[in-house]
């Protein structure tokens, strides 16, 4: 029985608390039984994961910022990236089979037994999150630990996070907490801002949002994500106008003697 009364649940990920331990990555892999991605070394700080993928649903960014004039200003910022579970989700709109749904917890969820692997959700995600899993041939991404939530326990990554950099809970409560945290940090001269909350974008608020201390692109987040379906009206119009024009041309040509 679906509990319609359940509030939307989500993540508040705070970079000022992340210590880069990657416990979230490991816990996610273990709980969701996701395969290893190999042992390649990237040479990019401690980030040997690279990015989110069909088999990596949490990924810790390691941003190194060395200041050679004021070395004390140097920073090492870590951010645990995840599917944003957008209010207006590009992947969900693009899905032609209805495999991608919003579940009773407000999470964007791929039903693996419905997805037929057409792959159209992949270029439709403004964050490059969802991906095709080659072995199963279906699209996969973070489920917000749907199975754990059914049993009333928090997602594996949030449970494993030792510093509460990843907080799980009702989205509205998390937003309140995040706004307070931002004010606190700003009062202490930390350049904090929220990403995915109170912003005017076509994807809407993100159910998994972030507190960041630099411009979004430093963390590989698009500064102004756009919902791809907003491009449709002008595109349909373009095709319609060309059709109408060529229909007249064809009519004239076949009528000519």
């Amino acid at each position, binding site marked *: 029985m679906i509990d319609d009364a359940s509030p939307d649940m989500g993540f508040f990920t705070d970079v000022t608390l992340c210590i880069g331990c990657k416990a979230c990555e490991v816990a996610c892999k273990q709980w969701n039984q996701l395969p290893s991605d190999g042992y390649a070394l990237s040479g990019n700080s401690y980030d040997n994961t690279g990015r989110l993928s069909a088999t990596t649903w949490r990924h810790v960014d390691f941003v190194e910022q060395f200041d050679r004039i004021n070395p004390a200003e140097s920073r090492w910022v870590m951010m645990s990236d995840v599917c944003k579970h957008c209010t207006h989700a590009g992947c969900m709109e693009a899905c032609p089979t209805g495999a991608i749904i919003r579940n009773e917890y407000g999470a964007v969820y791929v039903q693996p037994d419905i997805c037929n692997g057409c792959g159209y959700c992949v270029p439709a995600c403004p964050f490059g999150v969802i991906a095709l899993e080659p072995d199963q041939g279906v699209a996969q991404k973070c489920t917000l630990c749907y199975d754990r939530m059914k049993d009333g326990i928090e997602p594996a990554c949030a449970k494993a996070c030792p510093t509460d950099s990843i907080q799980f809970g009702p989205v509205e409560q998390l937003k309140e907490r995040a706004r307070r945290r931002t004010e606190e940090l700003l009062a202490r001269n930390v350049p904090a801002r929220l990403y995915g909350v109170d912003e005017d974008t076509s994807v809407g608020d993100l159910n998994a949002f972030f507190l960041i201390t630099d411009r979004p692109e430093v963390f590989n987040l698009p500064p102004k994500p756009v919902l*791809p379906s907003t491009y449709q009206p002008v595109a349909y119009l373009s*095709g319609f106008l060309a059709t109408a024009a060529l229909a007249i041309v064809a009519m004239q040509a*076949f009528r000519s003697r």
Partner: protein
Amino acid sequence: MAGVTHGDIVQITPDAVAASLARGDGGFGRNQRSYYDHPVLRGAHWRWEIIWYFYIGGLMSGSAILAAAADTFGAEGDEAVVRNGRWLALVGAAISPLLLIKDLGRPERFLNMTRILKLKSPMSVGVWSLLSFSGLSAIAVLEELRGRGRVPWLLGGLLPRGPRNLAHALAAAFTGSYTGVLISATAVPVWNSGRRQIPAIFVCSAVATACAAQAALLALRGGSARSINKLERIEFVASLTEGVLLVDYASSAGETGNALFGGETGQRLRANTLVGGIAVPALLNLASLFTKPSHAGKPNVVKTLIAAGLTLYGGYVLRKSLIEAGRASADDPRAALRQPE
């Protein structure tokens, strides 16, 4: 300062340190433009199956439009355009689903596409459009056979002629243009920056390639010179419109268009589509514009075949370049992180 990215930190040379100090920008890493130049977006996995589907889809839609137009407005002698167009449409409609199913990660689940109709998803709308087009193409061919006394039963007469042609042409136009909406309505920068032009370009290319294929068929089988003349007139307008739209796309996309119009992809597109597939055939077809169909002499088979071959190849290169440019664009963090207009 341009081009200072996090990637530069990996190689901190004494010269780079001196330059950074001279700039006084606070040293390395305060001007990061991306995260180690990692891709921000993911491209579509589409390979040859979808390139060919886009191509054949255009060819079959254009053929059906020409057949419907010739059946409605054509004069005596245009019957071959109707017949060939209907057959080309049906053959295309038979091949297209096979290509689409082969491309799926789970081909045995292709019927899941028909679980729902979702107007927000161009993929879903396209599947239903293709299904309608296939059905209408089958009816059109049955009608063709019935008209020639080859089909004794009445199946072909399900719909009266006018509505049948109109429905076939509309389904064809939608099937030929939704693929343009499909790629425009994605997060891929080079695709969505062409949303004003790509669907129209696909429609123009569909009609131009279909005219070329039909003209070649007529020329090879000793068809009517009048019909060839008419097809070449239509092709001329469709091709030139396509060329103008491509140039407009290139200039309005700016730097974001580099994945398609820059480098080797751009060279191939300019040589094979803009020049080879549009300008040269247009010049070859120019004479038809100034000759009335009734005054068209014996068709010049070689000229028609060359023009048709170039147009058909240019249409293929257009689809291939667009799909490959989509992946390159998605992999380019600078394109993805550029502020949208």
